[in-house]
Each structure stands twice: as C-alpha cells, then as structure tokens.
C-alpha cells in the first residue's frame, strides 16, 4: 500500500484529506506542522505528501526545502494544498521542488487529477 503524509494544522482538513486518500487506497499518516512532518519523514519516507503552507513552528515551504536537502528527500511527491492562490506562491513552491499545487478549496476530483499528474494513480 502506498503511503501518504497529510501535513496541515487544521484537524478538519487533515480528516477530509485522509478520507479522500484512504478511498483511493493510500495508507495515511498526519502531521500538524512542518517540523513534525520532517521528523516523520526522517523515520519513514512516504510516497506522497499533501502539504499546507501556513502552519505554526515550521511552514510548508521551509519543510519542503529541508526535505529536498535530505538524502532521498527528492523521492516523495509533494503536492501543496493551500489557500495561497497567487502566481508568486505557486512559482515559489515549484522552484522549491513541489510537484503539484492545489489551491483550496479542493474536492476529491481535484486531488485525484493531481495524483494522476504525479503518476501515483493510473490515468
């Protein structure tokens, strides 16, 4: 089973994302900020990370830059999932190594289409 880490400080969003990811057969773990996510990744790298931007302790962008520096940190696909919906944020995320970008609010259909984009679901 492929593994997904949902990183968001809102427990509601984590729950929604978890439900969608479990429906498409991912095993889901959660983190509520970038630092917690980094600790989890250093123990066990997931296949995909759904990543919020604005979070306390360590934000999503900082997390991503740290992750990509780690040995094997290039491996997980990272999909930003954030209310930040302007071109500057999107380009910043991509140059930091994000594979895809979802502007909230999202639904199951958008998540699935992005999972196909990063080749974690069959088209």
């Amino acid at each position: 089973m492929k593994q997904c880490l949902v990183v968001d400080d809102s427990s509601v969003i984590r729950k929604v994302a978890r439900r969608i990811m479990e429906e498409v057969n991912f095993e889901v773990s959660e983190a509520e900020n970038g630092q917690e996510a980094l600790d989890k990744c250093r123990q066990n790298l997931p296949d995909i990370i759904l990543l919020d931007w604005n979070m306390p302790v360590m934000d999503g962008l900082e997390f991503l830059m740290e992750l990509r520096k780690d040995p094997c940190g290039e491996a997980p696909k990272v999909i930003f999932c954030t209310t930040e919906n302007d071109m500057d944020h999107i380009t910043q995320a991509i140059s930091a190594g994000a594979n895809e970008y979802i502007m909230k609010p999202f639904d199951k259909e958008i998540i699935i289409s992005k999972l196909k984009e990063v080749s974690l679901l069959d088209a």
Partner: protein
Amino acid sequence: MTPRDFDYLRTLLKSASGLVLTDDKQYLIESRLLPVAKKLKYETIDAMVAELRRSEATSLKNQIVEAMTINESFFFRDKTPFDNFENIMLPKLLEAKKAQKHLRIWSAAASTGQEAYSLSMIMQEYAAELEGWRIEIIGTDLCSEALEKAKAGLYSQFEVQRGMPVKYLVKNFKQVGSMWQVNSKIKSSVQYRQFNLLNSFNLLGRFDIIFCRNVLIYFDKETKSDIIERMGKQTNPNCYLVLGASETLVGLNDSFGTVPDARGLYQIKDQAGNKPASAITRPASGAPLAKTGTTGRNFTR
C-alpha cells in the same frame, strides 16, 4: 412535463441541432432548462415550453437548443487523447508535413474552449520545433454562449485545477481577480466560430487533426455516419480523428481506420483504402520531439 411537450422538444432539438433526446436523457431537460427558465422569468420549464409552442420565437428557441446542447468540458479531459496528440500525432505530422510546414486542427465540439487551449498549450512546449510553422486551431460549437466564454479564455480556480498540470497554469495563464485567463499567445492561437455540425463543412477547409469528442453520442446512427463521412472529405492525407472515450466508429463509416496501439485514435485511410500504420513505429527522424526550455526541477507531467 407532458408527453406532448416532451415530443415537441424532442422534434425541435432533432431538427435544429441533430441532438437525439432519448427517454433516458429526460433528466437533461430539468438540469439544462431550469436555469434558462429562471433567467427568462418563467415560473416553470413547462410554462416556457408552452410559450415557445405558442409563439415559436426564434430567440427563445435558440436559447433552449443551446442550453440543451452545451457540453461540459475541462482542460486535458481524459488525458489519453492529449498524450496521443503529443506523442503520436504531432511527431508524425511534423515529419509528414515538413515541406508545407502548415498544420490545421479542428476542435469540433469546442464548447468553452478547454480542449483547443489544451492543444495550444502542448504545442507551446515545442515552440522551437514549430518555429516557422503555420498552426491553425479552429474551435467550433453550436452554442454561442459557450463560445463567448471560450473567446474570453477566463476560467475559475476550480476549472483550472481539474485535470491541468500546474506547470501549464504557470506558463500560460495570468490571474485576473479570482479568475484565471489564458495569456494572449494562447488566446490568439485559436479561432472560434459558431457552427452546426449538421451544416456543410466545405467552408472550414481541410484538416490534419480533428478532435470530435463527446458530441456524436447525442446523434442517431444515421446522423453520426453522415458527420463522419463528411469529416472524411475535409481531411488532408494522414489526418487523425479523435473521438471521446465512450465513442466508436464501429458500424458507422469506414473512411477512417483505427490507429493500432492508440486508444480512441483514428486516421483517414489512404486512397488505396489501406489502414493506418501502428502508432509505435515512428519515422526515424520524427520522434521523440524535443521540448523547448525547462521548468523547475523535479517536475512531473
């Protein structure tokens, strides 16, 4: 709705657009016509249809026909046709037409423009290879309201996320308030025309690629055959035809043959009636195409 009103609508739609309203499509009446009735301030759909039967007013008739035939569309819908476009059609045609350097593409049920713009965005990736080429993309649809949206090229956040890789958003769109608009390069690459597939195709000229997806399903077999036969006459040699995921040419018209190893892709037969060659054996110099430039690291298409 009374059976008499339903029959009236059915006859009207068949004669005006070719659309066949089978009994299982009755639900379309509710979902498509309620917004029209509300907009025009009729109490109910029945009241609107009754008024049309009485007055036969052209503008009311057109609005009803357009609403019934509008097609839901999104960027890179179904993905496979666009992969086939990028990996099979473009390389093959670039090789076959290197003397003319002219490609004509028809999006025959263009709706709100996402299909035509998706093709244009893919071609932007090959700008260097296409240097010096004349590329025409013609988008036609029966529905003028859909075409207005296509021409404006303005889409909601939801629409630009559904099926479209973010790299295309970054490269080809600009943000306009809470909406996203295709940039002028993409917008000007497509010409839109209101057009009824029941009318003669002669004025449209000949094409190298025809996308005709998710529209034949609305026609009866006879009309489908007629459309395909007439499309076959608007083709340049090697012309490809792309149908929707649930559509097939089986039992219709044999001017196009299936391209082996490429789902939903057809190609015009040559004059001897030979079937298309396999998609896999590409001309030696034809493939794969080199993309222009690079986007950030670690990008997944």
